């Protein structure tokens, strides 16, 4: 996409021809030298289900072994794992960041699978925006972590996209350059491949998913980009193992029925992907990310915050004023909230005090009641005690009286029995 530079329309530009060599044709070279010394940075996001070959493909693309353990299928959710590597080829240094989606497509309920990915991308944009809005900023040596390319790995079912693929790509197409690829393509026979590719592309088009378009405006790359676009989505095979083919070693996969060569264009589209992604369009991907996706994010974010380019009177607002106004508003709100909280606190304290007082009163009442009942009981017990003592006394008196009577009776009785005995004697002898 060519960037239009606005020129004031009243000025006339005259084309002059040079009569000698000035030398500003070395400007691009100067630019190249500068950027080479700075080093480049590129961030790739790989989205695909577990085991589909993301790590292997990265290893194959960059001809190295990025250490990573294969993930299990039991992740409870999707999380993103970013790893940065420093690569060097000739005198060009590349800071490569590979972001992996761990656990994508494994859960039974995949409704929220796209959320961590979108959040990550937004977070990188946010970080850049924050840096840009700083007062003292250092954008020239800022480590850009925004995602430049998203490789979406499609499973080779042979029928069409999966529902999860469609949903995720729709959420990502406005935030990142999506390059869909068919993974593990050595399972699709040649006649099925063409049908599969056209089905995928038609599904993407009919659902309005915008994938990355290879730029065709520059003459040098227009042709190659146009021919490559026909083969989208690229059907790739990845392998880090080398097999002897003919008299040299090549990256391949050895099956009992044949050998799939990764770099053979008849076998798979790996070479095309490498061309497109790395050798031709890497810089364009970075530019698109910055000028299209990042600008879109920035605009949405600032609009959210309440910034506008022009105020209701169509006079350009300056960022500064809006910022000041926002800040004051924010402080005002904070103060209000503080007041509210303080009031609530005071109210609560009062309530608690009242409750406690009530409780205290109740306790006092209870205490009095208990005391009274205690007194009453005590009195009753004492009364009873007195009664008992009286009874005991009475009993003792009666006992004493009875004993007395008894002793009297005994004495008189003893006299009586003597008389009786004498009377009875004559009868006793006869019996």
């Amino acid at each position, binding site marked *: 996409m060519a960037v239009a530079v606005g020129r004031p329309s009243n000025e006339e530009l005259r084309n002059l021809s040079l009569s000698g060599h000035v030398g500003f044709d070395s400007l691009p070279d100067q630019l190249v030298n500068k950027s080479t010394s700075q080093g480049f940075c590129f961030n790739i996001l790989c989205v695909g289900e577990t085991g589909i070959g993301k790590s292997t493909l990265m290893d194959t693309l960059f001809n190295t072994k990025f250490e990573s353990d294969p993930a299990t299928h039991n992740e409870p959710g999707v999380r993103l794992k970013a790893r940065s590597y420093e690569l060097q080829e000739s005198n060009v240094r590349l800071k490569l960041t590979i972001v992996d989606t761990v656990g994508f497509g494994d859960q039974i309920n995949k409704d929220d699978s796209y959320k961590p990915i979108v959040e990550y991308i937004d977070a990188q944009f946010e970080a850049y925006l924050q840096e840009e809005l700083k007062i003292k900023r250092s954008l020239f040596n800022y480590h850009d972590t925004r995602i430049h390319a998203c490789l979406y790995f499609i499973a080779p079912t042979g029928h*069409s996209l999966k*529902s999860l693929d469609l949903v995720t790509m729709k959420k990502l197409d406005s935030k990142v350059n999506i390059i869909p690829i068919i993974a593990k393509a050595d399972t699709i026979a040649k*006649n099925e491949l063409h049908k599969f590719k056209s089905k995928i592309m038609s599904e993407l088009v009919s659902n309005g998913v915008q994938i990355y378009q290879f730029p065709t405006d520059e003459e040098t790359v227009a042709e190659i980009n146009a021919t490559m676009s026909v083969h989208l989505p690229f059907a790739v095979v990845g392998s880090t193992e080398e097999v002897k083919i003919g008299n040299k070693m090549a990256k391949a996969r050895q*099956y*009992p029925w*044949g*050998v799939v060569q990764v770099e053979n264009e008849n076998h798979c589209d790996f070479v095309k992907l490498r061309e497109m992604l790395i050798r031709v369009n890497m810089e364009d991907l970075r530019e698109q990310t910055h000028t299209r996706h990042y600008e879109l994010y920035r605009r949405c974010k600032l609009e959210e915050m309440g910034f506008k380019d022009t105020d209701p009177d169509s006079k350009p607002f300056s960022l500064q004023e809006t910022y000041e106004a926002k800040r004051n508003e924010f402080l005002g709100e904070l103060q209000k909230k503080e007041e509210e909280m303080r009031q609530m606190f005071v109210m609560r304290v009062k309530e608690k005090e009242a409750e406690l007082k009530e409780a205290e009163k109740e306790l006092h009442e209870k205490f009095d009641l208990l005391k009274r009942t205690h007194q009453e009981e005590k009195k009753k017990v004492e009364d009873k005690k007195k009664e008992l003592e009286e009874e005991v006394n009475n009993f003792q008196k009666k006992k004493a009286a009875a004993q007395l009577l008894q002793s009297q009776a005994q004495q008189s009785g003893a006299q009586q029995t003597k008389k009786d005995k004498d009377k009875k004697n004559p009868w006793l002898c006869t019996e």
Partner: protein
Amino acid sequence: MSTGLRHKSKLATPEDKQDIDKQYVGFATLPNQVHRKSVKKGFDFTLMVAGESGLGKSTLVHSLFLTDLYKERKLLSAEERISQTVEILKHTVDIEEKGVKLKLTIVDTPGFGDAVNNSECWKPITDYVDQQFEQYFRDESGLNRKNIQDNRVHCCLYFISPFGHGLRPVDVGFMKALHEKVNIVPLIAKADCLVPGEIRKLKERIREEIDKFGIHVYQFPECDSDEDEDFKQQDRELKESAPFAVIGSNTVVEAKGQRVRGRLYPWGIVEVENQAHCDFVKLRNMLIRTHMHDLKDVTCDVHYENYRAHCIQQMTSKLTQDSRMESPIPILPLPTPDAETEKLIRMKDEELRRMQEMLQKMKQQMQDQ
């Protein structure tokens, strides 16, 4: 030896053979009689295929039974599948080979695992299997049992995706929901994307995970110790290659001058029936040639009986709570002691005890006095 039943040979036999004839009773022809009768009756087999879309289920069924069951099939596009529910489709064909008739029913489960939210996506399938059991249960307990149609699912081929590192949560969920109801035979689908080393690793991984999650897949029965070595060797190989890594194909291609069923790639031809390429032949032998009847037996003897026992238990526990409920099948009343009589007995016991105590007291009183 005994002069009981003796098979009299009508043909003239030499002397040494006569001894053997004297001992020959004749029930050795029973297998032949069974064979004759079964050929006349015909067989039926119900096979369920389950797994995500695009794993080659219909192609494999085509390769196994060499008939195309899915002539007019409409495949849904991705957007339609976002919230698709699982359907159950039955296709029945009658096929015949050398006079033996087979009524084959394939139960397909389109939509399984296709939606974005697949919670409990195996529920329609378990409901279907239970329904078939219930249907058979009712038929079996009915009065007229002459023509019972056996629609119970005898075997379920579960397709595991080869693109992952092992079993996924949806695989584990499905198998755990169904392992006590159906014979599950797990398969690694589209095995032509794995080199031999990867196949071995994946099989080991899957076997480990099946053990870890406690899934009971269909176990091949032990072969008798008096079988010949060849057969035993075959049986051992079969057990060691589970789960089978299969490839299916609808097309016939030319390979080395022969026409074989296979898949044509720029780098070679995969032959479906080549044992070095995949385990399709093993699966076919197991499923059709050797273990078909065992699958049916296990379904009848184990899974169905479990279902039946569970069903009856539920019914009787319901009956004791609510005696007004009509049971659809005749159940013998269990000999439980009546609550009333028990109470009476207890009362009488109490009375007796009281009387005894009183007697004791009176005795004591008399002694004191």
